């Protein structure tokens, strides 16, 4: 927790209470406007292209993975982790700053039983829909417009989790 810098009350609130259920956090203290945020849209475009061209968004590739009939998905995720791991080590070792000069910080993940129960439930859905949240967006972009319903239902699932959160085992 030592590496986390907090400025606004909202952020402190978010990190203290919800660190266990948050990912993709923004740790930059400088705020960004619409134009600044376009950077992430562009990264997203490249990411979406990789998703589709490597067929990660394919229902069949997910089936092959869970049926152990193909190495493809294991290769993709395995290499992605290795590259991510090496990059993180380089950033930490050489204290590489962000383009606006801030120290890179990543909030740690804290263990709770949600990773077990929630992880299992997501796994069930992953094999049924053939998609995790990222590929859902890429599938819609690929013209599978029925996936809009899957996405809306995923939003409803997230909302229901928020509603029931205090009553679920963590």
């Amino acid at each position, binding site marked *: 927790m030592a590496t986390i810098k907090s400025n*606004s009350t*909202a952020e402190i609130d978010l990190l203290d209470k919800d660190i266990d259920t948050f*990912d*993709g956090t923004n*740790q*930059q203290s400088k705020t960004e406007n619409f134009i*600044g945020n376009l950077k*992430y*849209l562009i*990264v*997203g*475009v490249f990411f*979406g*292209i*990789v998703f*589709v*061209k490597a*067929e990660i968004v*394919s229902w*069949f590739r997910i*089936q*092959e993975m869970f*049926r152990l*009939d*193909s*190495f493809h998905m294991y290769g*993709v*995720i395995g*290499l*992605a982790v290795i*590259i*991510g*791991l090496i*990059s993180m080590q380089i950033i930490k070792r050489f204290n590489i700053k962000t383009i*606006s000069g801030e120290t*890179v910080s990543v909030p740690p993940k*804290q263990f*709770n039983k*949600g*990773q*077990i129960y929630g*992880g299992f*439930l997501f*796994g*069930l*859905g992953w094999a049924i*829909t053939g998609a*995790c949240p990222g590929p859902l967006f890429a599938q819609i972009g*690929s*013209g*599978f417009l*029925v996936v809009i319903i*899957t*996405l809306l*239902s995923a*939003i409803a*699932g*997230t909302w229901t989790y*928020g509603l029931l959160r205090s009553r*679920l085992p963590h």
Partner: protein
Amino acid sequence: MEIFELISKPWPWYIAGPLIGFTVPILLLLGNKSFGISSSLRHICAAVIPANISFFKYDWKKETWNLFFVAGITLGGFVATYLLTNPDSLIVAESTKASLSQLGITDFSGLMPTDIFSAENILSLKGLIFFVLGGFLVGFGTRYAGGCTSGHAIMGLSNLQWPSLVATIFFMVGGFFSTWILLPWLLNLVS
């Protein structure tokens, strides 16, 4: 246009894996953003239907980058499918094809089986199971687990977070259970 031909064909895992891995440092260095996608669903809830639930009361505008990111993914999906169109049909492993054929899947040409993912199934039991129930599990499960394949399996493992390893293991346990036990039952139910 030899290069165009090359990038139109499906990309192998040893190209895609590193490209996805590099997203981790790129997002960190561009703006101190941890890679993670499922949070976008939470931000949409917080922005559109917070309904006074404490889980959705936070400064979602600070996380707008995530919504730009998923908008980009959608656009990227469009570009890859319509501008970098794969000239061939999808190649599915023979053993997967055989197992799925037995479960009633007949179309193996595209990224998704049209037997399931087509508009005429929206109002059927098939649609209810594969779109509504499946989507609900993805949204509920990822938030309960605090991340998805990107936030836990890639970002979390890259940052050596053991809770992410626990989550990743249970993603896989759920997926195997679903594929081998739940899916055959569900596909029989709708056939």
